[in-house]
């Protein structure tokens, strides 16, 4: 550009004031062009999904790890045994042997305690031994005993770690096999889908061919009919008009009629050709219309997003925290099963969200769900004193589907409300047996915590319930942090224990959560790319 200055800027400025089409509409067509010419690689998305799948597999693997399961069961059994021993201890306390019973329970704990307990015990033992050493002027005997104790504890630790490592290895090997299996399945699926598509296309082709042949035969038959009709009419006309003397003339007429018929056939053929071409044009127009309709539909698609998240539940009011899982063993890993979610955006500020929360823990008060007195039937051998069997609800597990609508009053901050459908999937309770004494059923003979899904108590709890929920969250890029409160609209238990005692309770929970949006559809991306 050279430097002549004939009011260039004035013209340019003036002509920039012209009315132009909407920039957003133009950008949409531009984006379509860019998608066709310069597609954005989706490797990052795939990597994200891959990492997530691996994490999920790891989580599932860790949850189902036989070593951990064994350890959980082992510690649970220990708990039961300890509880039994404690009940014995209570009995002994009553009889006056306080000191001996405490010692016995302590020794039992030492023998049967879990790995962590062992570690604590080692520290305590070391400390006590050190004190003894100081007091007894570092005697050699004390050193020897500490060494022995340390060695024994180390051996136990090694055994425990071996128990953990071996199942993890087996799980890893299984994962490799599973990966290969998944890969082969994918190939099979793709092959089958390809074969199906091919079958479908060949079927369509065959049908089209059949239709074409049918139309052709129809056309030919119609033409033949027309030919015959025209010849017949001509012949009848001729017959009507002719006499016996004019046979020669009739022959001439016949040839003329055939010529006429040929003309008629040619005309009809031309007409049919024209009709066919018109039909073809119509079909083409229809197909283009359909294409434009489908593209319009695509444009009108809803902005969708999907992601995963994890919840942390807390007790509300007088609810009691419980570390038991749905299997009735201690361990809370299964309380953190990732939650899938789907969002539909109405605008940048308003969206609808649905989640699927599997194996969600629900803390409760220690609720007495059942109390039965058992007495020996008369005539049976070895008569035992009557006992009272009680079941206390400790923790419930639900499958939740929360549906909520969220609005953003400030940038990145959303408040929401909605409903939640909850279906009971499991429950853990404390089972206690009390023997009858002179003061009543106050001698504890058994106390254990376990799942009560197969117990009649489970039937007393409402299986399905509806809850309302209130939610507040903050979204930073794809990460969402939030808090949610929900409360049931009805009681989940309403049981009459005795003539004077009724157990009633309603579920409520508070949760902190974080979610990660893994996928946004094109429309959602468009929505959030707008300033």
């Amino acid at each position, binding site marked *: 550009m050279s430097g002549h200055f004939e009011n260039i800027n004035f013209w340019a400025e003036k002509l920039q004031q012209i009315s132009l089409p909407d920039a957003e509409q133009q950008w949409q067509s531009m*984006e379509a062009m860019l998608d066709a010419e310069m597609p954005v690689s989706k490797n990052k998305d795939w990597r994200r999904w891959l990492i997530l799948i691996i994490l999920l597999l790891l989580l599932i693997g860790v949850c189902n790890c036989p070593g951990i399961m064994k350890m959980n069961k082992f510690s649970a059994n220990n708990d039961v045994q300890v509880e039994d021993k404690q009940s014995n201890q209570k009995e002994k306390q009553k009889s006056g042997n306080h000191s001996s019973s405490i010692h016995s329970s302590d020794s039992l704990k030492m023998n049967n305690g879990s790995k962590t307990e062992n570690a604590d015990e080692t520290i305590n033992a070391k400390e006590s031994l050190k004190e003894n050493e100081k007091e007894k002027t570092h005697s050699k005997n004390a050193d020897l005993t500490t060494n022995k104790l340390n060695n024994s504890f180390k051996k136990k630790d090694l055994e425990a770690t071996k128990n953990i490592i071996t199942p993890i290895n087996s799980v890893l090997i299984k994962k490799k096999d599973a990966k290969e299996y998944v890969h082969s399945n994918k190939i099979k699926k793709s092959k089958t889908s390809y074969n199906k598509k091919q079958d479908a296309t060949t079927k369509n082709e065959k049908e089209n061919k059949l239709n074409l042949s049918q139309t052709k035969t129809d056309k030919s038959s119609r033409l033949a009919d027309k030919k015959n009709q025209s010849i017949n009419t001509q012949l009848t006309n001729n017959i009507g008009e002719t006499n016996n003397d004019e046979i020669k003339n009739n022959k001439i007429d016949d040839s003329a009629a055939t010529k006429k018929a040929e003309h008629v056939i040619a005309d009809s053929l031309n007409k049919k050709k024209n009709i066919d071409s018109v039909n073809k044009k119509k079909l083409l127009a229809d197909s283009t219309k359909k294409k434009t309709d489908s593209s319009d539909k695509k444009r009108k698609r809803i902005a969708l997003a999907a992601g995963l998240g994890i919840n942390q539940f807390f007790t509300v009011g007088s609810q009691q925290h419980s570390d038991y899982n749905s299997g009735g063993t201690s361990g809370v890993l299964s309380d953190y099963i990732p939650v899938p979610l789907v969002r539909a955006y109405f605008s940048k500020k308003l969206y609808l969200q649905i989640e699927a929360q599997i194996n969600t823990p629900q803390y409760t008060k220690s609720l007495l769900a059942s109390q039965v007195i058992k007495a020996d039937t008369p005539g049976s051998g070895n008569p035992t004193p009557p006992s009272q069997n009680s079941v206390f609800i400790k923790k419930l597990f639900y499958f939740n589907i929360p549906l909520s609508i969220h609005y953003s009053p400030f940038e990145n901050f959303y408040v929401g409300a909605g409903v939640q459908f909850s279906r009971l999937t499991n429950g853990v309770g404390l089972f206690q047996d009390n023997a009858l004494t002179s003061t009543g059923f106050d001698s504890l003979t058994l106390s254990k915590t376990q799942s009560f899904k197969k117990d009649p108590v489970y039937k007393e709890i409402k299986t399905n319930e509806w809850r309302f929920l209130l939610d507040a969250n903050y979204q930073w890029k794809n990460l969402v942090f939030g808090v949610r409160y929900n409360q049931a609209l009805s009681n989940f238990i309403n049981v009459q224990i005795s003539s004077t005692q009724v157990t009633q309770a309603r579920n409520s929970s508070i949760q902190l959560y974080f979610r990660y949006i893994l996928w946004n559809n094109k429309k959602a*991306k468009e929505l959030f790319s707008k300033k």
Partner: protein
Amino acid sequence: MPPIDEDIKALIEGCKKNDRKAQGLLYRKFYVAMASICSRYISNQQDAMQILNDGFLKMFKNIQSYDENKAGFYAWINKIMVNTAIDFLRKRHITYTSELSDIKEESAIENSVIQKINADELLSLIRQLPAATQLVFNLYTVDGFNHREIGEMLGISEGTSKWHLSEARRQLKQSILLQIKS
């Protein structure tokens, strides 16, 4: 050459990585300026918008070759748009007829006259000019190319370019006066 705005720099970097968001923002930033260029060169609005998008696509494809030390970004993108429009018109086989025998250089239209008419009306008057005349007028008067450059760009002589400019000025003066009177 004025330094490039930091925002635009960041957007250019984004575009180099084929980031759709950056491309969208850059598109919106230069939409008005570029769309008005295309509307000046191409009489049909639909074609003008097609040229606009073709020009932007060309720009996004070649953004790796953009060197801020050589040219300002606006000048670079402006040149791409003008060239895209000229290519489009070239395909339409516009003819540069000229009566070189009587070149009477018409004086420029005064700003005060242009001020009396609104932008859309002015654009419609420019669009009424013959395609070749309109093209030369735009290149010379609005985009600031000289006759030698125009001649090289369009493959015509300087004299032809001068004739078309003179013709454009004459016709525009008449039509603007008529417009003002009406």
